[in-house]
């Protein structure tokens, strides 16, 4: 699996031993052909996975809420490329790409969405609560803004434990209007002053929180600039352009790792899919707007570059699409055929410790 390679830093980059050094010196990582091909595969993996989940949802095989990442693939793909083993990743409910990029088996990710016992969290959490702690993914949270303080806590703890790990903390534009965000940002800035908060804040600014645009939710629409109030540096990146994201991701992750100080990247992106898969009404935006953004689709842009630079030809692209389709078909079949969790699982994992609490019979 390509994601495996990314995680171990063995992604076919020019300087194999020190791929991260490259980026610091001028972004050579981003232009390396093989590396781009690997990341293209990841983006196709995500896109294909998400399209399959939408089908599963329509077929009634996936219940509950389903929020897909279509249109935003370059953001997670670029930043997770800067992930190093031992780092932590935390996000909200639009979380499917993260386990896929961090090396979870797509089969168990899909099985979770299908509510099966073979799922990533045993069928207990569903789409919004994906965790794969072994691979650095600490969730998957459903309350907007609720996970943000946790990420700041991870960062403090990782310094406290004298590691050089960082936390990648993802949040939506809508979450910035929530109280938890402001309290946590203040803490992050405060603790960061003493080098105790290696937290890379990644704002997935997809322009909307459900049906409310950024402009309709705050009078100060420069989201990164909100962090000025908390003493945290920030910059913006075109979140539809994988190469741009990649450069920023490696540079800022390295910086956070070295300084123990937080840093903010506001990735400008767009969710071309509806907010949730049950949402049919899109009164809040025009078809034209969606169309316009589709023309900047991150997958399409990358394909264009790969062709233009003659890294891949049409046949090679098609081959990759077919390969990823096969992976996802397998995952979907696996999810479909897996058993539901056993009913005893209802009462497990409520408390930690030897004497597992079994509740009422």
């Amino acid at each position, binding site marked *: 699996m390509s994601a495996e390679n990314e995680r171990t830093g063995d992604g076919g980059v020019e300087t194999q031993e020190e791929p991260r050094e490259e980026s610091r010196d001028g972004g050579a990582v981003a232009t390396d052909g093989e590396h781009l091909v690997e990341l293209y595969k990841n983006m196709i993996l995500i896109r294909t996975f998400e399209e399959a989940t939408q089908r599963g949802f329509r077929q009634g095989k996936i*219940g*509950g*809420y389903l929020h897909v990442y279509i249109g935003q693939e370059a953001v997670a793909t670029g930043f997770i490329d800067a992930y190093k083993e031992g780092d932590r990743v935390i996000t909200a409910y639009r979380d499917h790409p993260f386990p896929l990029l961090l090396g979870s088996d797509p089969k168990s990710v899909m099985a*979770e969405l299908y*509510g*099966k*016992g073979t*799922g990533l969290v045993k*069928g*207990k*959490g*569903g789409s*919004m*609560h994906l965790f794969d702690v072994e691979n650095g993914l600490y969730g998957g*949270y*459903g*309350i*907007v*803004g*609720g996970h943000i303080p946790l990420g700041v806590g991870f960062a403090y703890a990782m310094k406290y434990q004298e590691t050089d790990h960082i936390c990648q903390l993802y949040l939506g534009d*809508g*979450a910035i*209007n*929530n*109280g*938890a965000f402001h309290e946590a940002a203040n803490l992050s800035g405060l603790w960061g002053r003493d080098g105790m908060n290696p937290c890379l804040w990644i704002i997935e600014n997809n322009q909307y*929180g*459900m*049906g*409310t645009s950024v402009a*309709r*939710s*705050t009078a100060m629409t420069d989201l990164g600039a909100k962090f000025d109030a908390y003493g945290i540096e920030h910059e913006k990146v075109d979140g539809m352009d994988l190469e741009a994201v990649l450069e920023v991701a490696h540079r800022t992750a390295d910086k956070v790792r070295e300084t123990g100080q937080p840093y903010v990247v506001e990735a400008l992106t767009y969710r071309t899919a509806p907010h949730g898969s049950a949402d049919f*009404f899109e*009164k*809040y935006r025009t078809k034209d707007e969606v169309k316009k953004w589709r023309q900047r689709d991150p997958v399409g842009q990358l394909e264009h570059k790969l062709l233009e630079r003659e890294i891949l030809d049409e046949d090679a692209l098609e081959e990759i699409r077919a390969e990823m389709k096969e992976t996802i078909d397998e995952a979907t079949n696996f999810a479909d055929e897996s058993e*539901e*969790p056993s*009913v005893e*699982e*209802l*009462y497990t994992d*409520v408390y930690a410790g030897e004497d597992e*609490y079994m*509740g*009422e019979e």
Partner: protein
Amino acid sequence: MPEKTYREALREAMVQEMENDESVLLMGEDIGVYGGTHLITDGLLDMFGPRRVVDTPISEGGFTGAAVGMAMTGLKPIVEMMTWNFSFLAADQIIQNAAKVRYFSGGQVEVPLVIRGPNGGGVQLSAQHTHSLENMYGHFPGLKVVSPVTPNDVKGMMLTAIRDPNPVIFLEAGALYGTKGEVPEGDNAVPFGKARVAREGDDVTLVSYGRQVNLCMRVADKLEEEDDVSAEVIDVRSIRPLDEETLVESVKKTHRAVAVQEQWRYFGVASEVAAIIQDKAFDYLDAPVERVSGAETPAPFARNLELAAFPNEDMVADAARRVLYEKVV
């Protein structure tokens, strides 16, 4: 009488009061341009404009607190919690300010505020999006808490809620927005603190509220068919104040009771119902009061686990049979 959905009935009450009273306004996330996540407020922005249908950012603590301030200043805000799961972020404002400010101001202010939204689970939204909070809010003096289940009651209780000079926690049966029932035109205000006898019976009293009332109605049919038992079903509908009298009168007749709730067993409304019955009708009881509740775990995602986590027909029927031990054949 016209048939309407729960959704239409609820909306009708709000429209009616907004037309009657300029001080009533709506606030919440995506209630205007988007039309409301559950389409309760669809079209109201066009009818009343953006000053009276206020789309808010995702700032539950902020806008709920602001609504308390508006209420203290003579407005009558109706705040939509997109779902009650998000009200934990506003709980400080609801509990510390809305519920108490009248008291700790020595009666100098009042808080005519309604906070409404869907409550309860059942559609695989898993742990963070599945709560029944009537016991939590019902715990706090200063709040009124209601949980209507029929289209008639949702309209009538919303009218009462808007007119009430106190903060009202209005817990809607989200799973039932599309269900239909008879709803009178005009003013059908339903008073708080008065339970509804949803079905009369002689042998056992099934007590519940919200979505569980429909479950109890099905169980009552089943008991009649399978056991020749006549069950009375009481829809509490007003959690605080709670209608003790109707409960006690019913138990005096049936001598047996089962309280059903979706929320967790410990410290819940069903426990309160059981306590009231043993307090006020002890001498009439022929069996201990049974409680049927949700499983003592956060809500799971998988459909089979979710079904196992909530009260079902068999669980309620079996509880009824247990309290009827003398009668079951």
